[in-house]
């Protein structure tokens, strides 16, 4: 099967996956204790007629299954309706938050790769030497540090004490020097653990490859060590890293809840938490859909890169 057809088939499978994911979320959210109407009226005293009117307006008077189908029908046309809690258009709300999330998640991901890959190579080739020891210790610390703690420490040291960075996002466009500067601390906070993970994975994977007979053969043919490592070993050692890096990308997009809170970053993580607390069903659903799409696309991307890295892999 050609790569093109493979991608097409994978994309087709995506549809039932997304339907399943959103159906599950829909039922879980409705299983939560709490009535959307109570949240909408803010636990106020309203007359029965008003309550019935609100229920009818947002289809809350219908069975959960019908509510889901109604939602699905609109979602297909990317029509997510209006949030009963805020009265705002759901697509617009998410549309405003998504770029912020992508910017932070993307930056953290690039940072993870930019640090994780070189560090992985260095520690692998210098196994047992001080550089390796230091790198492994740093990776251990990186993975073990909870990001809320790291974020607060960075904020305290670099923003409050040294005053280098703002605590609050600047009032500037996403693509601007001020915003890029502000993003330094959140990016480090979010990217550290992922960088450590990538490094450790690449190191162990390269160690395995370095012992392989083809490496000995390459060296015996007199190839420079640099070529051996970068052209032969790295390419083969990269497969597991690609898997993890791909999944990390999806994770960074939706896993930034804590970091967004600490740095008051207007991303989707905070929006999701608030929506869950306020039982804002349409917003929760739309965010889950976006996250679902992100994960599916990341997986697809991983598979495509696999095929490019290893010509033996055909689907």
């Amino acid at each position: 099967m050609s790569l093109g057809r493979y991608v097409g088939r994978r994309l087709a499978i995506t549809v039932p996956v997304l339907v399943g994911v959103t159906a599950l979320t829909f039922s879980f959210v409705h299983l939560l204790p709490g009535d959307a109407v109570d949240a909408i009226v803010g636990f106020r005293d309203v007359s029965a007629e008003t309550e019935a009117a609100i229920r009818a307006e947002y289809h809350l008077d219908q069975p959960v299954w019908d509510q889901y189908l109604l939602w699905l029908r609109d979602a297909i046309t990317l029509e997510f309706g209006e949030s009963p809690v805020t009265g705002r258009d759901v697509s617009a709300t998410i549309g405003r938050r998504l770029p912020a999330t992508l910017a932070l998640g993307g930056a953290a991901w690039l940072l993870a790769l930019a640090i994780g890959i070189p560090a992985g190579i260095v520690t692998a080739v210098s196994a047992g030497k001080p550089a390796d020891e230091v790198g492994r210790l740093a990776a251990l610390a990186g993975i073990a540090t909870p990001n809320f703690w790291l974020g607060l420490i960075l904020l305290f040291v670099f923003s409050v004490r040294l005053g280098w960075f703002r605590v609050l996002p600047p009032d500037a466009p996403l693509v601007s020097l001020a915003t890029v500067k502000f993003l330094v601390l959140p990016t480090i906070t979010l990217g550290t653990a992922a960088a450590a993970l990538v490094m450790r994975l690449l190191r162990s994977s390269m160690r395995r490859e370095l012992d392989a007979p083809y490496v000995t053969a390459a060296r015996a043919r007199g190839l420079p060590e640099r070529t051996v490592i970068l052209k032969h070993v790295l390419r083969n050692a990269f497969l597991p890293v690609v898997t993890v890096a791909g999944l990390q990308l999806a994770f960074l997009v939706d896993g930034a809840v804590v970091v967004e809170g600490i740095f008051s970053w207007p991303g989707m993580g905070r929006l999701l938490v608030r929506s869950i607390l306020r039982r804002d069903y349409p917003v929760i659903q739309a965010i889950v859909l976006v996250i679902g799409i992100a994960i599916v696309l990341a997986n697809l991307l991983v598979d495509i890169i696999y095929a490019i890295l290893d010509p033996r892999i055909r689907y």
Partner: protein
Amino acid sequence: MAGNSVGSGERTRLRRRSFLTHAGALGGAGLAGCLSFDSATTDGPAAELIEEGFAAADIEPPFETTIAITQDEERNRFAQLLQSELDETGFFDVEIESRDFGSHVESMLAAADTEENAIFVSSWTGGWDPSNYVTMLFHSENRTPNGLNVGHYENETVDEYIDAGLTETDSDERVETYRNLQNELVADSPASFVRFREATHVWNGDVVNDWQTYPLQPGSYYAVYAPWAGVYTELEDETEFVGDLGSDVTNSDPVEINGVVSSQATALVYEQLVGIDFDGEVQPMLATDWEQLDATTYRFSLRKGVQFHNGEALTATHVKRSLERYEGTTRESDVYDWYENSTVIDDHTIEISCWREYGPFETALFNVSIVPLAAIDGEGEADHDLQTKPIGTGPYRFVEHESGSHWRLRRFDDHWFAGDETVPATPPIETVTLEIITEQSSRQAALERGDLHFSYNLPSASLSDFEANDDYGVGRRVSGGFDMILYPCYLPPFSEPSVRRGCNMLVPRERTLETVYHGIGQVAYTPISPLLEDYAGESFQKTIANEYVRSD
């Protein structure tokens, strides 16, 4: 409140007052005495009362029950203190269960229905009228799910007092009624009142010249410029004021606002017929004058030359339509709890009739924002959708709202106020930016770095550091909020008043205030906040405490 120099003096006075309350409650015994006072009751009258109740309900101790709280570190520590007090009596075997806010509220609403065996730790916020503090919580008609009488408490005398308080318009009579009501409530203890909260405002002294602390949270930003209350703030070398909001603004339409943050964000945008100033006095705002024509009818003269941010001029029709707009909305009870109809006499005169005599009439009017006709007639049209774009007559107009980021207002140059000797005609602050910050520690960091000029919502543990630091100003005032424990009156042994009263005596109030809340707030024995001094002043609180709660 005269002029702008009251801030620091007021602070000292308030601090001294809260100190006196402590000293009084401790009987001069100091902190060590506080600890022994809290636990000395174990074998005393509290235990006797509980024993009596257990016998009457025919229940063998220890009774297993749960303290239900929201996921909150302070609540958790309070629950642990309470747990150890209750366990120590030998009558109870208590567990603590914490839930997220929504689930906690839901379980309270459903508690009586499912006969849930739990004591609920909760809080409530009242306003400038005493009825706000009791009606929803203790009137038998407001048993859940109709209201928030969670324990399904029923007491005819309490109901009568609550009803009388609502319809009584004579202020002395009202004071008497609400004092009797509180007496009855504490004697019967459907709930234990633990702590009155404080409004705690902190500002950067290098930027903000002085700041007056409005005690109720929706009015936190009145200090920026509230000519009707004789208050304004100047900045040092700045035209933009940066404050904070504890969560996002969800909806800015007066008839749909359902969170305190949205009210806070719009307080400088909307105006009402009357205002209640920093001292709790009623002041004219959009009405210049009013008189009571008969028991239920009032005539208002409206201010002339008032312009809305969209250019409309205020008339009596705006008032009528703004009131009637509440019908069928989520906040209709704000108005239709008393509103019958209104008659437009001329452009600047209106008569408002109530369907019953209504004690809290003026405070109720302070809740009704007057909005432009374009927003009423053009409802749903993007330009006039108050949900996302508030338009009022206030000194600041709405500029933008970046969801999850900030909320911004700019000075409205055509505001009606012409200036007097205390407040200038033009607000010195040109732009008000409110940053949306959900993490307490980030809020503190932002204030310390100078990204924020002001915060109303810092962790209580850090307030003493700010108070000790000359670079910051701190304003503290008792607010309308209180923390309480709601007993499941539907469930033996808590159906026995003596058991509830015994528990009420055991509540470790002093220790909670000192160790959990770092002294921020005041010990509470009754529901009505001492903010309403006539109804629940210090000496009244003390009398109640001596009579029913303290045993030494």
